[in-house]
């Protein structure tokens, strides 16, 4: 065997070893080792790239920008833009994504009575949740402001924010629990009804009120968020303005109406639109509590059901696109208001 052949053989053997090492990982130790190697490789490659860009004294701007922003842009394209385009395309195709059907899926979504209920529910959610959460959060923030128990009271309302939507849904499912046939009630709501001498209700079954009971869960979670943001901006109102208003004859409700609300208006809009966006995307609560049955489904839940339960890829995609289009104006308005808030600062 010549020296050259030996070297060739040696390198192909080495490459095989490395490849096996990187591709086959059975024990946790092997997996962690592979992870460490890949992270080090990533850092080394990125470091080399950035170092190369930084080395010339006068690096061209476009080159620096490309190297720094390039990876992020690529990931955004791969993770967001490509799926968006592919989903939009899919919405014009049939169940299996093979035959082009034009706007059929959209027509069905707006004319089929089942889907109309889904759209109606979504509208009810998007109108009620932001309004109720914000009103409750605002009134609560004003009431506990500068009281002795402010911290404890705010923590109580903020806690639900820390609970996952699924966790909250499980909790509330117990609250709404119904036991028929003269059995003892284990749900809080029904027990209260029993104490009041009323008939126990199947809160999650009877449409259309069951949607309102689901909405209550979302309000319970979001009111804490609204309260925190609004409380902070209420505290940002200068003391002398409040004092001037007191001298001008305001107190209690007048202060709220003429000073507090106008002063925190930008924050109010941000809170409303942020909650509206979260509500449009609501999925977990409906999925966990009713799975979209009994006329409680919303768009986000329905496109999951269509895509993965009924395997109707086209319909699922169409619903996703509808949701996407509904959310765009909210985002635009939200971003504009955020900028306004920042300008004031």
């Amino acid at each position, binding site marked *: 065997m010549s020296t050259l052949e030996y070297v060739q053989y040696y390198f192909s053997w080495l490459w095989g070893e490395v490849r096996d090492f990187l591709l086959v990982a059975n024990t946790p130790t092997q997996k962690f080792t592979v992870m460490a190697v890949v992270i080090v490789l990533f850092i080394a490659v990125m470091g080399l790239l950035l170092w190369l860009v930084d080395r010339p004294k006068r690096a061209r701007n476009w080159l620096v920008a490309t190297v720094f922003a390039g990876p992020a842009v690529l990931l955004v394209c791969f993770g967001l833009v490509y799926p968006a385009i592919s989903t939009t395309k899919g919405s014009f195709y049939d169940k299996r994504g093979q035959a082009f059907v034009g706007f059929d899926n959209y027509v069905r979504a707006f004319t089929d009575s089942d889907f109309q209920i889904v759209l109606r529910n979504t509208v009810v959610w998007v109108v009620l949740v932001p309004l109720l959460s914000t009103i409750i959060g605002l009134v609560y923030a004003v009431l506990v402001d500068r009281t002795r128990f402010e911290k404890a009271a705010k923590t109580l309302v903020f806690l639900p924010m820390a609970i996952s939507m699924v966790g909250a849904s499980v909790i509330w499912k117990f609250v709404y629990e119904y036991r028929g046939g003269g059995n003892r009630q284990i749900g809080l709501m029904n027990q209260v009804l029993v104490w009041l001498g009323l008939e126990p209700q199947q809160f999650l079954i009877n449409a259309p009120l069951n949607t309102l009971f689901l909405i209550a869960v979302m309000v319970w979670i979001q009111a804490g968020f609204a309260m925190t943001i609004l409380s902070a901006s209420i505290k940002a109102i200068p003391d*002398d303005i409040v*004092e*001037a208003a*007191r*001298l001008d004859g305001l*107190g209690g409700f007048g202060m709220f109406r003429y000073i507090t609300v*106008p*002063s925190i208006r930008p924050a109010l809009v941000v809170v409303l639109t942020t909650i509206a966006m979260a509500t449009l995307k609501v999925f977990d609560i409906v999925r966990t509590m009713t799975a979209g049955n009994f006329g409680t489904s919303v768009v986000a839940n329905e496109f999951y059901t269509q895509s993965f339960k009924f395997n109707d890829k086209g319909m699922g995609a169409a619903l996703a696109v509808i949701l996407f289009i509904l959310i765009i104006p909210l985002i635009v308005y939200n971003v504009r208001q955020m900028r306004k808030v920042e300008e004031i600062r």
Partner: protein
Amino acid sequence: MSETTHNRINADTLHDGSSGTYLPVKGTVTTMATVTYDKASRIYPGTERPAVDQLDLHIEDGEFLVLVGPSGCGKSTSLRMLAGLEDVNGGRILIGDKDVTHIQPKDRDIAMVFQNYALYPHMTVADNMGFALKIAGTPKADIRARVEEAAKILDLTEYLDRKPKALSGGQRQRVAMGRAIVRQPQVFLMDEPLSNLDAKLRVQTRTQIASLQRRLGVTTVYVTHDQTEALTMGDRIAVLKDGLLQQVGTPRDMYDTPANVFVAGFIGSPAMNLGTFKVNGGFAEVGPARIPVSRAAIAALGAEDNGKITLGFRPESLDVVSQAEASAFPVEVNIVEELGSDAFVYGTLKGSLADADVHSGAGDNQVIVRIDPRNVPAKGERIFVAIRPGEEHLFGAGSGLRLPA
């Protein structure tokens, strides 16, 4: 109200405030609005020492009273007690004959101008000025008329539809004044309203506020830390220190006969020179100089004064004299400050100054002398100065109180 064509107050129609007769105000029912602090105290929760300690002060109807003192002296607290923004923990406060100690701010018939103006950022200038009337339920046409009248006085007519954000500092200050005027209150309260303006505008606005107050004839309580503002604006001045009232009087009183060492050093710019000296056989020994002290003053010295006297003399009470004079004492020139109309020597007292403790606005062991601006000494030169007879101020070294001349 009459619709006159001009909506600006020209410089030539603006009075300097001494007679204050431009643009008559009409239709206001005048009631006697005196203000009386009757042993009013404020003790903040969690503190021992009162922020305002048994303040006794009577302000006449239509008077412009200035509360002045260093920061933390309780002047703002006193004003806020009158406004109803601070609790009164002891004593009473009266407006006219009415005890307002425990009355809501809005029912006291007062208007306040805040240091940072406290304009409502979401309202236009006109809405800001008319807001109190709107809350009180005044008809819209009346509000508009009164706002326009005030805007005319304050030269704000063209800004009525703007938001405060779009105004300069001076304009915002005038809106804050306008908001007070529109209410036609019994008492104006002003809490350092000029401190956010630049120096030139401050001097200009100072005279405008003073002349406006004379014209409207509304009792005014004005808080400032600036003794020049106090001297130039007030009918009377009340000096506070550590929550205690030191002296009340006209600007002339305060300047000519300060009641104690603190007031003497606080009022006047540059500040009065103050030195503590031993009294020996009817004379205070200032270095080589012997300055006669009256029998009455020596007789009034107490045990706590320990045979020493605090001698105060203003920079302008010193004459440059020859070394031969008995009352002359040497000053070594450190720096000469020329102001055009005046010149001030900042110098060190020289000679045997055993037990002497001299200080002035310029610092310890410094004296300030006003000299002829056409004939200034050089730095490092030694000059001899003497106190003009009768212009010295005598205080007990221990008590700090004024002694009879």
